[in-house]
Structure formats: C-alpha cells, structure tokens
C-alpha cells in the first residue's frame, strides 16, 4: 500500500510561502484548541458538583486576564491579516516576461491556447522557470481554474476576462481542477499541468500540431490573424490612430492607460476592449464623441476574443 499523502505538492516558492503562513495559523489554532479543551476538561473534573474544591464568592480580579484575552487574539489575527494580504498583493501582478496562455472554460473542459496558436484541451504544457500568465474566460457558466500545487485559483467568468499567473519551479505533472461547481460533469473538468525543461518545451511547442492527441490547430486558427481580418473589416476607419479619426487609437495602445472624459483613467486591457465592443458608451475616451454603436449583435464572443488577440499582438509589436 502506498503511503498516505497528507500535504499537497509544492511546485513554486510562492506555494512554499503560503505553506509557511498556513503553518503559523495552524500553530495558533492548535495552541488555542488544546488550551481551551484542557481548561474545560480540568474545570469539569476539578469543580464537579461532588468535589470539595473551594469556590469562594465570584472573584473580581479578572481585569488583567480580560484585557489579555482580547489584546492577544487581536495581535495574533492582525499578523494573519497583514501577512496574508502581503502575500496576496505581492503575487498579484504577472511579471512582464510571462508567457501568456489563453484559457477558456466550457462545460466540461479546459481549452488552452499558446502564444503561437497551438491548442490543447485539459493538458497544459509549460516550461520550468518561466512565469506563466493565464488570461481566462468562460463560454458558459462560472468555472474556477485551480492549481493546488501552486496554491492558486481564480474564477473563470463568462462575459469578462480574469487573470492569474504562476511560476513553475519544478518539472513534473500537477493537477488542474475546476473548483467552481459548474454542473453535471463538474468533477471531470480536470486536467494536467505538465512542467517541462525549457528545451523540451521549445521542441514540444514547435512540433507539428497534427501529431498525437493534441488537437490540430490550423494556421488561420491563430486568433490574432483571425482578429486582424475582423478588425480591418469593422474598426480600421476610426481606430488606427490616424489624425482626425472619430475614435481613439486601439491599434497601438493595448496595455497603456487611457484618459477618459471626466478625468478618470483606465487601463486598456482585455476587459476594457471587450466592454468597449459591447457597451461602447460606458467609458468615453477623452476628446472623442460618443459615436460608436455596440457590436454585441454583430460579433460573436469568439470573434471579440480574436480582435483582442490582434490588438494585443499589434501593441506588443509596436513596443518592441
């Protein structure tokens, strides 16, 4: 019989840091559980009705204990709060050099797409030592992308993009789970994260897309080039940054901050572009009229995704 595992795999130093915090919480919890249980048992025996323990009139000297009883827990939980928040915020923004993988949740599978267009279903191959950024959305209900070995999870929500990233530091195979209940085959919405040596990954990525179990991806399947066609057919008149155009430049601005009417600023990211296609008048760029109409009825959600991929590739190209 195999030994029973009682701790999850650790595949990144972030996971290790989370475990340290977990150990602190566990220590505090065990201490208080044992202390209170021991007191309850001790009192129940010492002061049982039949015992002749002395029970003077209610004593009034508990003030110091009372103060300690509220200050100590307060300090202990504030440590938990700051430590937990710091870890969470430190690990929030994906590093600049991340490889971006597109994740689409769908009842009941994970569809994944690498930057060069290569697709996978449920399996995700990544190189060791390189941060991986997942840009995720759902085609139907809410799912949640969960990597227990990395102590990370993020909901995958229809109608918007969510993001999560991790740095694989150990090669091997790890669980991918859907953590948000999503219907009949929820428990089969699982996959494998395969962390490979970098050269191996490069070879895997370059390998013909038609071999093995990996689904085929044709060249036109590359979302950015499909997006280019859609963009050119619908958007170029206003949004390529030509002087005097009716609309703001969308071609070279992905990832930058955009000034809005009314003084606000907004990051031009996936959600912003998506929202601009669906509800163009919600955020009006500074200096431009509210002239655009919604593309909700004209473009499918897949097409919108392709447009976003195209815009992203354009700004990356212009940044280099």
């Amino acid at each position, binding site marked *: 019989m195999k030994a029973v595992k009682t701790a999850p795999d650790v595949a990144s130093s972030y996971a290790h840091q989370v475990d340290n915090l977990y150990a602190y919480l566990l220590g505090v919890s065990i201490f*208080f559980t044992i202390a209170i249980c021991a007191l309850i048992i001790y009192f129940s025996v010492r002061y049982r009705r039949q015992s002749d323990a002395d029970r003077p009139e209610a004593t009034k000297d508990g003030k110091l204990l009372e103060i300690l009883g509220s200050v100590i827990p307060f300090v202990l939980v504030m440590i938990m709060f700051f430590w937990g928040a710091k870890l969470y915020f430190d690990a929030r923004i994906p590093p600049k050099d991340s490889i971006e993988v597109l994740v689409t949740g769908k009842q009941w599978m994970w569809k994944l797409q690498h930057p060069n267009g290569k697709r996978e279903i449920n399996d995700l191959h990544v190189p060791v030592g390189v941060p991986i950024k997942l840009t995720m959305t759902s085609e139907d209900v809410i799912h949640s992308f969960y990597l227990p070995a990395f102590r990370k999870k993020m909901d995958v929500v229809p109608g*918007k993009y969510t993001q999560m990233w991790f740095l694989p530091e150990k090669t091997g195979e790890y669980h991918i789970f859907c953590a948000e209940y999503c219907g009949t085959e929820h*428990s089969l919405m699982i996959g494998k994260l395969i962390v490979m040596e970098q050269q191996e990954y490069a070879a895997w990525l370059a390998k013909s897309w038609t071999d093995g179990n990996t689904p085929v991806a044709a060249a036109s399947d590359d979302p950015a080039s499909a997006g280019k066609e859609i963009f050119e057919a619908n958007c170029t008149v206003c949004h390529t940054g030509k002087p005097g155009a009716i609309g703001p430049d969308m071609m070279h601005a992905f990832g930058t901050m955009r000034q809005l009417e009314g003084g606000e600023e907004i990051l031009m990211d996936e959600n912003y572009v998506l929202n601009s296609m669906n509800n163009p008048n919600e955020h009006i760029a500074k200096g431009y009229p509210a002239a655009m109409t919604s593309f909700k009825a004209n473009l499918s959600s897949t097409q919108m995704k392709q447009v976003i991929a195209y815009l992203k590739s354009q700004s990356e190209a212009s940044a280099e």
Partner: protein
Amino acid sequence: MNDSAKTEPKLNYLNAGNTVKSWLFTVDHKRIGVMYLASIVVFFLVGACAAALFRMELATAAPDVFSNDTYNKLFTMHGIIMVFFFLIPAVPGVLGNFLVPIMIGAKDVAFPRLNLASWYIYMLGGSFTLAAVLLGGIDTGWTFYTPYSSVYADSNVILAGTGVFITGFSSILTGLNFIVTVHKMRAPGMRWMRLPLFIWAQYATSIINILGTPVLAITLLLVVFERGFGFGIFDPAKGGDPVLYQHLFWFYSHPAVYIMILPGFGVVSEVLACFSRKRIYGYEFVAFSSLAIAAIGFFVWGHHMFTSSQSEYAALIFSILSFLVGIPTSIKIFNWTATLYKGSIELTAPMIYTLGFIGLFMVGGLTGLFLATMAINVHLHDTYFVVAHFHYVMVGGMMMAWLSGIHFWWPKMFGKMYNEFWAKVGAVVIFFGFNFTFFPQFIAGYMGMPRRYHVYDVAYQPFQMLSTAGAFFMGAGLIICLVTLVASLFRKESCGSNPWKATGLEWTTADSPPHPHNFEAPVVVDVEAYDYTDERIYQDA
C-alpha cells in the same frame, strides 16, 4: 411551586385539547413550537438521508453508487434542506417560540396569529422544495450560483427557489414577532439587563432576519425571473453580471451564518449557567457582543468571493472585517470557559452537548481565520477545507447547541425526563462521530480536493473513507438520541416543574409542561438573571 406529580393531571398546554384541529389552529406559542419541532425533525431526517447517500458514494474515488447527476442532486438537496429548513429555523422556530414569551413573563408572543401563519408559510415553502426534489430534483448546489442556475441548469430551479423564497417570509415574520414581543411584553421588573442571554441572542438574530432575509428573497426572485422570463440580470449574454448574484447572495448568506449560530450562543449560555450554578462570566459582554456580531456580520460577505474577480481592494476590506468579527466571538469562548471556573459542575446530557459545542465551534471559528486570510483563502476556497469549516460551525456549533437546548428544555416542554444514561451516550457518540466525519476533510481540502466532486483523485480517498465511516457513526448517535427522547414521552412519572434546579421564569414560575397561558398569575421579576444563590429554585417538589 405547583406540584405537577399529583394524581389528577393539571391543565397544561398539551392536554388542553386533543383534536388535530386544536393543534392546526392553535395560536399558543408553545404548541406552535412543538409543531415546528415535529416538522423540523422531519426535514432534518430528509437532509440527513441525502447526506448518508452521497457519503456512500464518496467512500471511494471512483463513481460506484450514483450517476453524477444524482450525486449533484443529493448534495444540493442536503444543502438546501439543512440550511433553509433546519439550521435557520431550528432554534428560533422550536426553542424561540416555546421560550421567548415564558422567559420574559408574557402570556404569548405579540402577534399569536401571525406566529401560526409563520409556521404555515414555513410548511408551504417546504412543500415547494420537497416537490422540486420529488419531481426530479435540483442540481445547482444550495448557493444557486448564476448563470448556471438561471440559464444552464436543467432541473427544478424555479420550484426550489420559490420554496426558499416563501420560507424566508416565515423567518421575517418570526423575527418581527420576537422583536415586538421583547420590547412590549416583558413582565414588570424584567429589565433589559435582567433578560436571559437566550433572549438577547434571539433578539439579535431577529434583527438580522428582518434586515437580511428580504435581500435573499429579492435575489432568488431575480433568478426566477431570469430563468422563467429571460430577464438579463445575471446572464452575461444579456448584459447581466453573474458576479452581482454572488454579492447579493452572500450579503444575506453570510449574516445567515449568524442567524444560525447566535441562537445557539443563547442556548449554550443558559445551559452553562445552570450546570455550573453560576452567572455567565461577562453577562453584559456576551449580551452586547451578539448585537455587535449581528451588525459587523453584514459587512464581511466578500470573504466568500476572494477568487470571484471582485476588486482586490474590496477583498482587503472584507478580509480585515472578517478578522475583526472573530474577536468578539473568541472573547465569548473565553467567557464561557471562565464560567466553569469555580463553578459547581454537573455533566448532564445538555451540558455534554454544550461543552462539545464550545470545542467544536472553536475549531470552526479558528479555521474561519484561515479562510479570512487572503493568500490562504485563494488556495482553500471551494475545497473540502471550506466544507469542513462550515460543518464545524453549523453542525458542531449550531446542531450541538440545538440538541443541548432540546435536551435542556425537553422536560419543560413535555413534563417528562428522558433516560439520562442513553442521552449522554448519544451525546458522546455524536461528538466523536462528528469529528471522525469532518476532521479528515480539513486535510483533504488542504491537499486541494475541490468540493462537490462526484469522482476524485485517489490520493484523497483515505480521508473520504474516514469521513464516510464517521458519518455513519454519527448517524448512530443521532438515532440513539432520537429514540431516547421519543421513549421518554411514554414514561409515566412527571419530572416536576424544575428538574435541573435552574433559574429563569420558565423554570421557577411555570409548570412542566406549562399552563396554556404560561403562568397562572401575573409575573413580577425581582431578581437578576442566573441568580443561583436564590433559595426559591431549590424549594421545588
């Protein structure tokens, strides 16, 4: 006081009428409490059977007893029935109805007919939900997350949602009734600071019920509208926001945790005082902290949504408030423990349940800190760790407190004492069975096992197996408990009006079982709560 062990049975609320009609049309809060007891036990058994069935499935990693669809319907049914038809109404419906008027020296609640209506509304809501189960079931989980529930699920969401919607009104009306009763019906001399802590707890709970339950009702109505009439509120395909649903749902459902547990705090305070022969340490603190918890509890709902794509800064606020709400709770645990110090302790069945409550609820509270910690929550959210955590709070906390209260006031309600030995055996078996069931789930959760999985990775199997074994152990304890209590009803001898020698108007001034109007003469209160030096409690026959 009155000797109820005489040969001629005295008039009491039970023998005041024997027809079915005299029960179904009663406006006596005590009879309504007993009707709640009977119906809540039925719902509890239905929910427990569902749990027994899916625990069988979960014993092994492979799917072996049920299809995934049936499994999903079983855990959904377990959740909906246990939360809305057991945990929420259990203490207020049964003990609250029976005791609130008696404890404050009143003849009845402020609105007796409305009180009866509450029970009918509860039963109507329950019938809708049971109909949803019988007509093919519902598979959304008790949380009804959109857009799954409003668009994609292929089961009886509208029927079940309507059932929960209707039942909500029974909570609202009961809450309203208790608040008015406590304000307006207290006997002369029953000042606020003389109220039993049970009353304070009921009062705080009633406030949450009135403020929170309408939000749940509106939310479920919106789901029903979206599903039935295609409204675009939560469905992104129609411009809705699915995460909005979670905000609305948890705005009610986090405070609902306090709706379930605060009344339990009240029960535990009464039982501890009685069997330690002492006033609860820090009465004022325990009383007001219930109100504080009720108030802060409305501002922590986002801790259920750290990974939902809500703003990180919102998450930060929700995290710190969740920690702060833990402080008064931890002080309560210190207060209860301190009450034992230099007490005169008697380990009766209700006391064993109460001490069990303190231990289990404490574990539930401490593991809540893990989930309030942002970085830890991201890992543990939607895993078995969460399942274990809330069962420690709900079952280890609330159910143990409820059973403690049932055992404590059983002689008051029915005038009969149960077999104490078997009642204690039941309590101990439930306590250990509970730990066997739910402790392994903490480990499975930390190891990353998501909740609501029909099949799972074999690495988690040892924990799930233990858990299933524990569940049947605990089930045996519940059966012992049920049989012991029911058997007591067939006993001949009366238990006297104050078998525990407890303080409180219900013990010192009312018979067991009480007179139809609770007291035969108007009540005047001249003592503080929990005055165990008062000679009068020891004079009873």
